[in-house]
């Protein structure tokens, strides 16, 4: 009985430890900073049209404005 509970305890701590390491690695490596190449993306707009960052390469600058939620103030 005692052996079993110790084994269960060990198994649990192993699972928790594994989950922790996974959490760590899922975190973004570093924030995009001034001077960095902006990561490319393709996203759909409010009319279902796709837009890619590379579409604007060599043509226009892009002001990429992230906002919290639609209808949030400002």
């Amino acid at each position: 009985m005692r052996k079993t509970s110790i084994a269960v305890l060990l198994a649990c701590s192993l699972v928790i430890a594994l989950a922790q390491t996974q959490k760590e690695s899922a975190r973004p490596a570093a924030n995009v900073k001034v001077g960095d190449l902006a990561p490319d993306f393709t996203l759909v707009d409010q009319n279902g049209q796709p837009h890619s960052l590379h579409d604007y390469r060599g043509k226009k600058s892009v002001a990429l404005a992230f906002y919290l939620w639609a209808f949030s103030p400002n």
Partner: protein
Amino acid sequence: MRTFQQSLAKLEAADTQVLGVSMDNPYVNKAFAEQNGVTFPLLSDFGGTVSREYGIYKEYDKFNRKIPAARRTTYLIDTNGKVVEMQVDADAVDPTKTVTACERRKVKG
């Protein structure tokens, strides 16, 4: 986004494309754009993949729940795809700095 709409003519005159991004779905963004007269693209980063890649994925306490959203950040990206200016949080609400940076770059270029 309203503040960007107000500065849109200036930004476009400086050869700058404005793109808004949030984790809302396109239908919510459509309603939001219509109600606020937003004419530039509002992109849907549903699930937050792009926000994570830029390192601005956050969780906000709202309605006693954790709600994921992108931190309010504006990146000015030049024609080579490089980040040349960046404003975060309160600074990112008012696009004046972004407008000034665009106009300055336009004069230089």
